[in-house]
């Protein structure tokens, strides 16, 4: 008879589990979350049970962001993007690849000599994710979400990696700044378009703009944590965003730069910073968008 109370306890736990699951009921909206990963980038896009992760920040903070917004039973990430191989963008991805099943890993073939990048390559290998090297003009569709690849541009790739292998990690190396190889994409659902820029800078931006895809967007992730070596007048003019996200933490580089902040202020763009707001969640139904 006393044993009954332990069976009852089991039921209580199951009930609790069901109760907690209900909290995650998905809606048919895009949730675009700039995770507070400290000094680095980590952006999570969720539409129903589809998740896309763009960069993983320097450390393991990204895991907490994933737990907060992805239901606990969902261990599949449909797409992970690494904009370019620098620690403040991939550090947290090592653990992500160890813990989640990743369908596709979108990353440039640019190699990095850092030992931690080797750790990432091993983790990706162990995960079994399909590696795709992006280039300008590619369009990816994940569930209802589209990703238009604007960079690395054809020009850059034919100059820096003319005959390298494709769809592998670390296919080529370059003397150029890794930031210039950043993957730049437009993530869109219906009419809502978000420009995700990695650490792209003034030397590559003109080439990207000649593609003509950047016009009248809703959302921009300000390049390079608001560094002066990032956003330009031309890019801001062409994209004319309504909201600008700066993914930044405590740093010694002076990010975000005052000139960049002024530039955004002059254009009357609403600016949100992860070091001030924590995680920044934008919700869109494909027509309009709002902060949550």
């Amino acid at each position: 008879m006393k044993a009954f109370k332990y069976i009852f306890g089991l039921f209580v736990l199951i009930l609790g589990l069901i109760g907690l699951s209900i909290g995650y009921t998905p809606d048919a909206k895009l949730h675009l979350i700039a995770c507070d990963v400290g000094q680095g980038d980590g952006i999570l896009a969720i539409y129903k049970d589809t998740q896309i992760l763009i960069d993983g920040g320097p450390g393991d903070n990204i895991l907490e962001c994933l737990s907060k917004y992805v239901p606990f039973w969902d261990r599949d990430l449909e797409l992970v993007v690494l904009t370019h191989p620098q620690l403040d963008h991939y550090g947290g991805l090592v653990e992500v690849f160890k813990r989640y099943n990743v369908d596709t890993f979108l990353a440039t073939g640019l190699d990095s000599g850092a030992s931690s990048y080797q750790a990432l390559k091993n983790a990706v290998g162990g995960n079994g994710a399909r590696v795709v090297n992006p280039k300008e003009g590619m369009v990816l569709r994940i569930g209802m979400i589209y990703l238009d690849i604007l960079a690395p541009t054809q020009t850059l790739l034919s100059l820096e990696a003319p005959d390298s292998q494709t769809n592998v990690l670390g296919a080529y190396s370059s003397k150029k700044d890794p930031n210039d190889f950043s993957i730049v994409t437009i993530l869109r659902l219906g009419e809502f378009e978000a420009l995700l820029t990695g650490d792209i800078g003034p030397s590559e931006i003109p080439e990207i703009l000649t593609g003509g895809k950047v016009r009248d967007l809703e959302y921009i992730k300000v390049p390079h944590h608001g560094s002066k070596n990032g956003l330009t007048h031309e890019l801001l003019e062409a994209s004319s965003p309504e909201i600008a996200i700066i993914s930044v933490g405590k740093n010694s580089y002076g990010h975000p730069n005052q000139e960049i902040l002024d530039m955004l202020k002059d254009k009357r763009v609403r600016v949100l910073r992860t070091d001030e707001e924590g995680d920044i969640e934008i919700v869109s139904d494909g027509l309009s968008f709002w902060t949550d």
Partner: protein
Amino acid sequence: MKYLFWGALLTLVFVRYFSSKPTYLDGQRLRVEGVVRQEPSRFSYYQKISLAGLKIYLPKFPEIYYGDKIVVEGTVQKGKLESAVLVLKEDQKGLFSGFRKRVVGFFQRSLPEPHAALVAGISLGAKGSLPKDFWDNLTKTGTAHVVVASGMNVSLVASFLIGILVLFLNRKKALILALSGIWIYTLISGFEAPIIRAAVMGSIAFSAQELGRVYSAWRALVLTGLILLIIVPGWLTDLGFILTFVATASILVFQRKVEKFVSFVPQLLRGDFSTTLAAQIGVSPILFVTFGQFNILSPVINVLVLWTVPVITILGIVGGVAGLVIPVLGRAVLYLSYPLTTWFIAVVRLFG
């Protein structure tokens, strides 16, 4: 005669302790070689390792795990090894530490953070993967001891298991089964010193209690403690050793009394609650002083969360082991711990 015996034993403990302490000179260049016997703490950019009585800070990669054999060079500076460089790292091929690593990996693939780290910490004492800010919350609330492989969990789980098993079996059989459970757990959790000594202390003390009187249980525990200290004198200042000893002693002395006292607690939780509360009586003053910041509310917070510890431990071990064979089954068991870890995390965040 009796006093002479205890006195001689105590003297032997102290002699052994002071004659076996390693000493270092500041500024001394050292090459330290050894097997990592404590799970390294991982922070965003570095990891902290304790080896041969020294604190060593190394870059985050390559990651060093419990059981790895490492060689490190550096300069001694106030108990720390400054400008430490990792010369060599060998994964230990040992049956048990590899097993433990796989179980932790299964937790991490099955549960989100910090739930996975909490289950790993509570059930295996693997605190290495705890997110930094959650670790801060644990120390602030005085609950960090639950994720340290101190062996205190063993005392809680042993008592909890006996409590469940006597419902189905007679006392002797329940005791044997519970102790077998504890020793299997010792193997799974990596055959780590703190867990072994806790298992030794628990086995002897709880056997004495079930088979004899409280007084003989007490004596058995003290005797075991002293003998362990003669074998490994360094444990005298080992916090985990002290916690385990005090927790076991408190359970022996206070549990039955506390059980009557907490009659307001639903019967479902009363056994578990009284065990953890009894352990608390002895342990909380120590935690209060040692685990980071003073927190006036720490005893209250511990009362709120500690009852989940034996249950999370058992679900974690059963789920983790089952998961290596049949992942779906293991995951289902682990999910049962999710409401408990959610509660634990919510309480710790609220007060942290």
